[in-house]
């Protein structure tokens, strides 16, 4: 795990208690940073894959938003032409997923999945809607803060990461054991996007910026 990753067992998040390994990890001796990450062809991305709002008969409900940012490594170098996949609940906090039992409406115009490649400078851009919060069974009155799930590959295998992006000043962050499973306050802060209205479209959609630094590239193994 990278130095900012949560511990495997974090009892406040109940599912970790039986799923996190209890024995110490064995050192891979630096090999993960020597293996390339899988690279995806531009042809893997289809026309509307980066716009989650154009897959129904009309626009989905909710706050339409641009989500954009830049992916770099710890040396500040852009992560180029790298696959980013996102998935999320709709504006009511319901996933288009058979095992989501939240009693909130599905939106027939929102499937909640997208993908794109970073450009030659590490930039990416999605169009989506701001997801709603949703309840879960972790504890009494448990609600997940609004979030977008993000999957990234990076340049080397060691950088493979799945994370969640949150929204500024969300009061549910304080009670969320998944977010608070990250021990370092600065690392938690880095999972919160910033409002960036000028990246949106005036009178149409808002904008948020989320920059992503991937740990684990070879050039930074020996520290900053």
């Amino acid at each position, binding site marked *: 795990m990278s130095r900012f990753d949560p511990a495997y067992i974090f009892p406040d998040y109940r*599912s970790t208690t039986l799923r996190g*390994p209890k024995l110490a990890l064995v050192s*891979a001796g630096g090999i993960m940073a020597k293996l390339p990450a*899988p690279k995806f062809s531009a042809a893997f991305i289809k026309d509307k894959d980066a716009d989650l709002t154009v897959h129904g008969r009309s626009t989905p409900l909710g706050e339409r938003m641009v989500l954009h940012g830049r992916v770099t490594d*710890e040396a500040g170098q852009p992560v180029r032409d790298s696959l980013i996949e*996102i998935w999320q609940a709709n504006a009511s906090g319901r996933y288009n997923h058979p*095992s989501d039992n939240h009693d909130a409406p599905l939106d027939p115009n929102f499937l909640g999945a997208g993908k794109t490649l970073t450009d030659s400078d590490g930039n990416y851009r999605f169009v989506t809607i701001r997801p709603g919060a949703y309840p879960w069974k972790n504890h009494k009155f448990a609600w997940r803060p609004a979030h977008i799930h993000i999957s990234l590959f990076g340049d080397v295998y060691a950088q493979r990461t799945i994370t969640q992006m949150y929204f500024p000043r969300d009061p549910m962050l304080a009670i969320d054991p998944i977010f608070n*499973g990250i021990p370092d306050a600065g690392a938690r802060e880095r999972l919160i996007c910033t409002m960036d209205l000028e990246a949106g479209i005036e009178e149409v959609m808002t904008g948020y910026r989320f920059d992503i*630094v991937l740990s684990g590239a070879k050039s930074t193994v020996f520290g900053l």
Partner: protein
Amino acid sequence: MTTYKNEGIASQTIGPFFHNGLKWEQGNRIVGDAGAVAVTVYGKVRDGAGAVVTDAMIEMWAADGDGTFSETVNAQQRPRGFARIATDAEGVYRVHAFMPTHTSIDGERFAPHLNVVIFARGLLTPLFTRVYFAPLVSTIAFDPIIAAIGDEARAATLLAVKIAPNAYQWDIQLQGDGETVFLTRD
């Protein structure tokens, strides 16, 4: 002006609702060189209470016959050596791959294996590991990862069991008795 510190992002769980977002057409297929021997690798994922894990996602990354990671894409425009598969209602995954060969990286020689990453609800941080295709730990004792594990019984958790000429079973125990060896991501 604030100094930008390039500090890394933290991992978060994949959660239980990833299937539509991460599903790939024929995601469970690893394609090798022409003439590579096809093998199926399958198994069950279990938690510390022995319950099957029905919402894990497993990725496997295989080197080509020449030991390098091919940038060749498959018919779906993905790297042909890379597979992604979710466990089913019985906690089972199944990947159609090919028998890997020895690989050398920076002068270190590794026994035939597939690289594995496991994500699941309840895993805030992914698990990196490997699956080897040797009958006994002693036959691959030279492998740097097997050597780093040291203990033979623990190392045996990374060996797929040959069930049929082209079928290997490799179960993953996330925690508890027979806990699979997991690796640091460095």
